């Protein structure tokens, strides 16, 4: 029987898996180190200001024991990993498990990230390829618009769009996930969906326009570059139809764009967190904002941990998809 791991594609997948395990390991060590490197003691920040001395001291000792800070560093490190493996990320300030709080809000974030990533990729690349193909004034205009969209600060664009489409022209609500007084568990899924939809509009549009701009300007440049290369010029001499030429150029131009998906995903997660804060969309970003305001350290670290996990899984999937699309990797033969 043939060894299934001998297949070049399986080797590629295993190599990527190993790489992302290393990334996760290093990131988790950061999460252990960061609170221990910070100036001052997180415990001191948790004690309400104005607590007088005998009470403050005993509260400090109690909290230290509770969080295991009275143990040695090596014991803390072992505890940290044991807790992680059990899915225990500690408690937030309101005594709920951090893992539960963050996982509850993760779907709201993913509902923004995944559609924006996919729709932005397809729409942006389509626009970019078209713009390269038509040339002339319209192409230039699309180019400048997409450069502008990709270069302006996304959070500022969020404010502008909020000002224009929610304050000046009240088409969309100014923020939130549901209407005021709407309690999701009391309604049917369809009603919940219909109520959230208008609130979803602005954050989705903001993220989509910014990411689409980036893809379109990149794709236009890549397609123009391909249209100018030898094999296209040769095919044109042979009298191939324009549509055929375009499809060749597009297929070669899209491949490098795929490698950009990784970086795009990493940026998009960060962008989504801040956009959620601006529009008060109830995702992980809003949890992070509230955690920062109340100095809830476990929750802040928990939001970072979960974005890290999402990014690692996302990157791994993108890499696998890329390997599948690139025949050189799929078959393990050099081009």
């Amino acid at each position, binding site marked *: 029987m043939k060894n299934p791991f001998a297949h070049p594609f399986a080797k590629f997948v295993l190599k990527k898996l190993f790489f992302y395990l290393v990334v996760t390991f290093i990131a988790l060590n950061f999460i252990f180190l960061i609170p221990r490197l910070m100036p001052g003691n997180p415990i001191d920040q948790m004690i309400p200001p104005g607590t007088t001395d005998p009470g403050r001291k005993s509260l400090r000792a109690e909290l230290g024991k509770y969080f295991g800070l009275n143990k040695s560093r090596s014991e803390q490190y072992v505890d940290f990993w044991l807790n992680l493996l059990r899915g225990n990320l500690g408690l937030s300030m309101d005594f709920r498990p951090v893992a539960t709080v963050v996982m509850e809000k993760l779907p709201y974030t993913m509902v923004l990230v995944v559609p924006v990533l996919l729709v932005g990729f397809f729409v942006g690349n389509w626009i970019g390829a078209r713009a390269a193909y038509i040339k002339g004034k319209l192409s230039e205009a699309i180019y400048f618009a997409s450069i502008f969209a990709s270069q302006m600060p996304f959070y500022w664009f969020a404010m502008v769009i909020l000002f224009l489409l929610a304050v000046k022209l009240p088409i969309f609500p100014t923020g939130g996930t549901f209407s005021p007084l709407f309690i999701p568990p009391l309604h049917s899924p369809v009603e919940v969906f219909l109520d959230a939809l208008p609130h979803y509009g602005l954050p989705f549009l903001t993220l989509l326009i910014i990411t689409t701009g980036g893809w379109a300007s990149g794709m236009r440049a890549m397609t123009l570059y391909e249209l*100018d290369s030898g094999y296209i010029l040769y095919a044109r001499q042979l009298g191939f139809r324009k549509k055929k030429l375009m499809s060749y150029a597009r297929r070669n131009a899209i491949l490098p764009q795929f490698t950009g998906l990784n970086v795009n995903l990493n940026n998009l997660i960060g962008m989504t967190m801040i956009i959620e804060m601006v529009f008060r969309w109830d995702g992980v970003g809003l949890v992070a904002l509230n955690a920062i305001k109340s100095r809830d350290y476990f929750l802040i670290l928990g939001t970072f941990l979960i974005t890290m996990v999402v990014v690692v899984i996302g990157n791994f999937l993108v890499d696998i998809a890329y390997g599948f699309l690139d025949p050189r990797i799929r078959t393990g033969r050099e081009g």
Partner: protein
Amino acid sequence: MFDLLVRSPKFIFGTAIVLAIILFGIIGPVFTRDPLKPNPHHVAESPSGVYILGTGDLGEDLFAQLCMGTRNSLMIGAIAGGFATFVGVLVGGIGPYKSGLADETSNAFTNVVMVFPMLPLLIVLVALFGGGNASMFLVATLIGLTSWPWAARCIRSQVLTLKEREFINVARMSGVKGRKIVITEIMPNMLAYIIIVFVVSLSIAILTEAGLSMIGLGPDPSSNVTLGTMLDFLGTGSTSIALPWNYWWAFIPPGLVLTIFLLGVFIMQSGMDEVFNPRLRRV
């Protein structure tokens, strides 16, 4: 390298925009009022002859804030961008010349760090280290600390192409040591490239700082003005109540300055790309 860059109209145009904004940040604050001084008689006024860009919700002169904010944002960008470029040169520039374990390690480390979602990481770092009233220097350092991988990767790829050039081979064959080749042959040829990596890092740092300030994690807004604290929408700054009250003059100008600066850097960078990558020039 510089003589080639100077002949690129794109590069000149982008550089002109960037220099104009730097000049605005240097000269502007000299002629304007105190950007943080409240004025209870002129609260939240729309633009007028006296207050060119209107006033904030405590009566601060927003044009003065814009000038000072541009200066401070550029300073934060310079510190963070300088830090990122320095680390980038160390990691990306020395690595490829010490082929072998050192190169493998530094490159692998760069690739690992590239996967981290930097903005969430920065949010954690500033929230924990800054504790609500960070200094400009601390914010700048933390931004630099998280943004060097991009610089390292750019510099590494440039060193790798330079390494194969003839004059480097000549130097090596005549017995010059590896480190000396990097310092006397490769780095001088990369100076223009490193400067542009610095400018781009600077622009990314400014963008990041403004994003952090906007969510109340930037430098302490009660004593510092940056383009970001002017957008401090979720914290305590002048725009926190600007949106519901239609104070467009409070948040449009700082965002526009940021956008123009970033566009300038982008044009400059694409001009540079054409010089370093001649095949693009035909497009």
